[in-house]
């Protein structure tokens, strides 16, 4: 009798506690729109680059992918782009690919930006924001590090230093 009472009480308290914990957790994570979390498989997408070539994320299986979301109006993006380009040169033969996803800008603006900063890695444009929505990205820049199996290893938002770019690329090197 007493054991049963304790068991029932414990069960009810656990259920109530779980409901409260879930509510608090859900409330405090509702603002980060991020829909892709670390350890999860990165959602596949196809986007066209400036030359009109299609890039599909899953085609880069076997390589680490440095997936960077950016815009020409975003100052920290502008700062970190040359760093990414430098490291891209060093890592592209070691199995690390850079994919820079521009958020809904015109080809002319992006081409012009790429030219000024002499960017060599493929830049694709997410014209109608589908990929942005799928990854739930709000502030730019945002960088996802995807390993050779297509899993997200790390997520980084905010401006990167060249040192960090190097470390991150080392991490996803197959």
């Amino acid at each position, binding site marked *: 009798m007493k054991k049963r009472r304790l068991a029932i009480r414990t069960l009810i308290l656990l259920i109530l506690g779980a409901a*409260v914990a879930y509510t608090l957790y859900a409330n405090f994570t509702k603002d980060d729109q991020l829909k892709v979390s670390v350890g999860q498989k990165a959602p596949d997408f196809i986007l066209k680059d400036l030359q009109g070539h299609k890039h599909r994320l899953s085609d880069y299986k076997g390589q680490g992918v440095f997936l960077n979301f950016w815009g020409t109006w975003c100052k920290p993006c502008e700062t970190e782009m040359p760093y990414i380009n430098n490291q891209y040169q060093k890592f592209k033969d070691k199995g690390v690919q850079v994919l820079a996803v521009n958020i809904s800008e015109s080809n002319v603006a992006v081409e012009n930006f790429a030219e000024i900063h002499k960017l060599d890695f493929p830049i*694709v444009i997410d014209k109608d924001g589908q990929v942005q929505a799928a990854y739930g990205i709000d502030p730019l820049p945002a960088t996802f590090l995807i390993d050779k199996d297509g899993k997200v290893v790390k997520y980084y938002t905010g401006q990167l230093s060249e040192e960090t770019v190097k470390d991150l690329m080392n991490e996803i090197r197959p």
Partner: protein
Amino acid sequence: MNDVKCECGHVNPHGTVFCEACGKIHEDEEQEKKILDMRYEGSARRSQTYNKTVVDKIWNFFSSVKVGVWLIVVTLIASAIGTIFPQQMYIPPTIPPEDYYQSQYGWLGKMYYQLGFDNLYSSWWYLVLIALIGVSLVICSIDRVVPLYKALKAQRVTRHEGFLERQRVFGISNSENFNASISKARELLITRRYHVREENGDLLAEKGRFSRWGPYVNHIGLIIFLIGGMLRFVPGMYVDKVLWVREGETKVVPDTNGEYYLKNNKFILQVYDKNKDKAYQAALQSVGGTVPKNYQSNVTLYQKDGKSITGEKPKLKKVEDYAIRVNQPLSFHHYSLYQVDYKLDELDSMTFSLTNKKTGKSYGNLTVNLYDPKSKYDLGNGYYVKVLSYFPDFEFSNGQPTTKTRVPNNPAFVFKMYAPDKSKGETSFVAIRENIEPFGNNEYKMAFKAIGTKNVSGLTVRKDLTLWVIILGGILFMLGVIQGAYWNHRRIWIQRKNGKVWIAAHTNKNWYGLKMEIEMILDGTNLDMPTDQAQIEKA
């Protein structure tokens, strides 16, 4: 902590004040009282008797009504504080909140902001308070309804003298021929819809027991209501998003997993016309200026047809055309799109003319789509223009031309103009009211001709699957209130003790009604009307 066996044979849980079955009093304290405390039928609220493990201690804490009331009071005070100054979501978004509160409300406002009251209703501690009220509600209810149910179920017809004489309404009749009187009273009780049980010539008449469950039905409603509130945080249950669509543009409806797309065909803003809307002439005259009559977005809703990989242009099939107006949302598959905002005449295209500066002769016009400029515009006859750079929202930053946003609020271009006699081209920087020639004197210029504008509709995307849960909770809440408020649980005991008739009665409310009813029942019998011992005590 053993159970207590009463002399009547019933086994009561430890801590019971008086026997569930016969009513014999077990607590010495109660023995001294003239009138029994009948709350919860003297049942052992277990929380108050077992207090051993941590689980029991937590349980007991929440089981206290005092704790529950304090939680509610604290929440009320906190909620009131949140209304002193506006919450952060209602202040102008252009001013940083730390400055806003101080500039508007002085040091009090600054404190208000620093203490986090500007986001009170979604702060963790406020949510914890609400959650604790929910927990208290559940545990208080369980801790009372179960023993109460058991006690009412275990009650026997024949009750102990000590129980009967400590009822508020009680009396002893010395009448002679009481057998006939009791059976007459019994009939009258039945006609008054009492449920009468008989045992050894003793009567227990009872009605309206279900009203005792009213408060618990009400609490279940409240808890469902709280669950409804909680469901808002569950992904997919509640959506409240903004969607801006330019005329002619097709955009994915947010939070539909890329399933629905919306095209804005036209945004319409109509105002009242003093000459046409005669009925409102006087009112319009007194107000002056323009008064809007209609905000409307003519849209087409599309649904994705078949599968497509994210980023690919999906195949769309048309669902319907609709005119979204204020309070007339476009509804589809749990989603509703409301007209909430607009922007008129946003820059969309610019038209230039390639002109010889000296002769003023034009060699053709070109229209640049500000959302997607081409890199080259061919004007024929060997004249063409290349777009070298494009800054949709131009500004100078550290001496470099850059763009503030991707929206063409202040477009600027670097054009290279080619003519048969200028095969190397001439460079020109063109912004609004600006035309700079960075490499000296040009022969040609891009003469500004016209701008094209489009309206933009601001829509709210709303989905709320929690509404029905909240409505259900509200209905149960009200049913519980009605159940507990409009019915009373009344019991009348008519029992033979030592050759006399003892009459006792109890109700959970409306004692006056109960006494009236007993008078009607005893009228015409030889039985005496019992007295209200509470009133005697007062007097």
